[in-house]
């Protein structure tokens, strides 16, 4: 009964002072909205980074000629890889799950008057295993198609949408760089990644691309998928050793190839975004704390301003605990209300900002619950002191208060 009564009283008091109540909660509203928006966007950014990385394949080593990104400017261009390198990696290294060669080219795809400029990847079926790509419609290459370098292709969704619109592309013939080929499959959508549109691609048997487009039998890149049971860095070391031997690099000389571990990059990038999220979240949490102090401040002022009112209540027969509960409930209602409004604002802001930041919007129930619980706790903590002060007032003095 006491709680029911005091809730009614608290709601009435809040209703009587709408503007003041709103200003009181503003700190909490902004605090909660800031925390939840920051953490939501931060989580989205982390997820985006993780997804971009995983689009490279999990536990995948990328083997390329040259000394790595942006280095090895001078001198002759290091040689590409040969098919023998591929078989050597597959046969001589332990812990390799799959090996896929890649030859990259680009050109215009044409279907019934629609043009689309895209990337062409020459590879083998192993590529699907390495990259964990799946075919949504149709099928992968047949071994005999790979062997013969048949004019068949699997297209990404961007290519499909631009060339075929709503028509089913599987079985249709399109032209790529002036050569006719049959579409045998469509890849599952991968979305935008940090490395461009992952769906803007045409995948063909490597022998076809080598014969018709690049004109030699070189392989520009080798993807090595490491078995989950093996340590990527150990496999990486033995891969480097093997390649040094195969490319006849003298001891002490620099590598003329580089091995790029996607997991390393993944760890670094997700680590960075997590730390950034934590920092921004902490700053926002401080603003939430400031909002709580704002509530305490207004409640204290309110106790002074409403001294006479408290006196009336006490004279009428309110016991101290009822006055205490009323003020406490007022503070809690205000801060919870602020918390709720803050959550709604955060939801709206996150949905609006996420696309601008090119990160996915991920609704995290936990973050929302914690922020709300925190705002309620702020109501209790910062409301208690003023409430106790109100309840301790002497009715005679309170009534005399001007």
């Amino acid at each position, binding site marked *: 009964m006491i709680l029911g009564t005091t809730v009614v009283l608290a709601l009435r008091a809040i209703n009587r002072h709408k503007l003041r109540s709103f200003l009181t909660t503003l700190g909490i509203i902004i605090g909660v909205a800031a925390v939840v928006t920051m953490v939501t966007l931060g989580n989205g950014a982390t997820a985006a980074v993780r997804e971009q990385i995983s689009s490279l394949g999990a536990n995948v080593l990328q083997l390329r000629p040259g000394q790595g990104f942006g280095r090895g400017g001078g001198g002759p261009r290091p040689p590409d890889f040969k098919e023998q390198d591929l078989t050597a990696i597959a046969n001589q290294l332990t812990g390799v799950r799959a090996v896929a060669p890649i030859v990259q080219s680009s050109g215009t795809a044409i279907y019934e008057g629609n043009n689309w400029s895209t990337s062409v990847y020459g590879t083998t079926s192993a590529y699907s295993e390495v990259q964990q790509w799946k075919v949504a419609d149709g099928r992968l290459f047949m071994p005999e198609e790979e062997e013969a370098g048949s004019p068949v292709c699997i297209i990404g969704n961007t290519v499909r949408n631009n060339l075929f619109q709503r028509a089913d592309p599987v079985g249709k013939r399109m032209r790529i760089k002036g050569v006719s080929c049959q579409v045998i499959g469509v890849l599952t959508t991968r979305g935008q990644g940090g490395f461009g549109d992952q769906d803007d691609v045409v995948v063909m048997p490597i022998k076809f691309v080598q014969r018709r487009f690049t004109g030699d039998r070189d392989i520009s890149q080798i993807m090595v998928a490491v078995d989950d049971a093996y340590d990527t860095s150990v496999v990486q070391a033995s891969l480097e050793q093997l390649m040094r031997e195969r490319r006849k690099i003298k001891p002490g000389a620099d590598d003329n190839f580089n091995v790029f571990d996607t997991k390393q990059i993944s760890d670094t990038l997700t680590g960075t975004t997590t730390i950034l999220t934590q920092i921004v979240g902490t700053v926002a949490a401080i603003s939430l704390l400031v909002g709580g102090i704002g509530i305490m401040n207004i409640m204290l002022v309110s106790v002074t301003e409403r001294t*006479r009112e408290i006196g009336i209540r006490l004279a009428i*027969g309110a016991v*101290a605990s009822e006055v205490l509960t009323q003020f406490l409930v007022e503070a809690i209602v205000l801060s919870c209300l602020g918390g709720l409004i803050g959550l709604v604002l955060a939801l709206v802001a996150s949905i609006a900002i996420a696309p601008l930041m090119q990160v996915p919007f991920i609704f995290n129930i936990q973050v929302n619950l914690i922020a709300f619980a925190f705002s309620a706790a702020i109501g209790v903590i910062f409301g208690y002191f003023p409430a106790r002060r109100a309840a301790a007032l002497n009715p005679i003095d309170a009534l005399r208060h001007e």
Partner: protein
Amino acid sequence: MSADPIISLRGVTKNYGSGATAFQALKGVDLDIAQGDFVAVMGPSGSGKSTTMNILGCLDVPTTGAFLFKGRHVETLDRDQRALLRRRYLGFVFQGFNLLARTTALENVELPLLYRGEDRRTRQIAGMAALDKVGLKDWWDHTPAELSGGQQQRVAIARAIVTQPDVLLADEPTGNLDSERSVEIMQLLTDLNRNSGITVLMVTHEPDMAAFARTIVHFKDGLVERVDQGAMA
């Protein structure tokens, strides 16, 4: 009138402060108030009448001496017990009306019932009945700012009687009103005293107002100087 007084003060003293600044407001007050009486308390300021009223209103406790309310020793009760006593048996009317601002007349009148834990419907019925008694039934949804001083005091009286108290304590209820409104308020209090059997205790320093009372208690220097029978007796 019952034989036992509803209120008895025996040798009540009240000290404020300590040491050099100590001040004795009451120096041993003995007073009996019969059930159903209409008592006016008079006296110059500093005579102890307000202190006495605070004690009678269970807002304060005597330093020494006994205060019996309906045979119960109030001086032994703690703060919350006294609050419950006020809630159950007492109604207050103040000089400054002391209504809650921005709150309708009905909500103000309902307030004591809210603390008693009455449900919404009971509160509304009793609240409207009390407003009807003071002649403000049609003003139930007006806030204090929209009411005249006399109307505000009548709302305050409605709030004091809504719980059907045994005793109504009025601290200079006409102090802020002109003489015409004052007479209206006094007639209302007299009616309540006669028709509802409420014991009325009123502090005033206006002899005209005290004349409405049946008993007039004069205070001087912390003691009861004399007790008169009023004009209405």
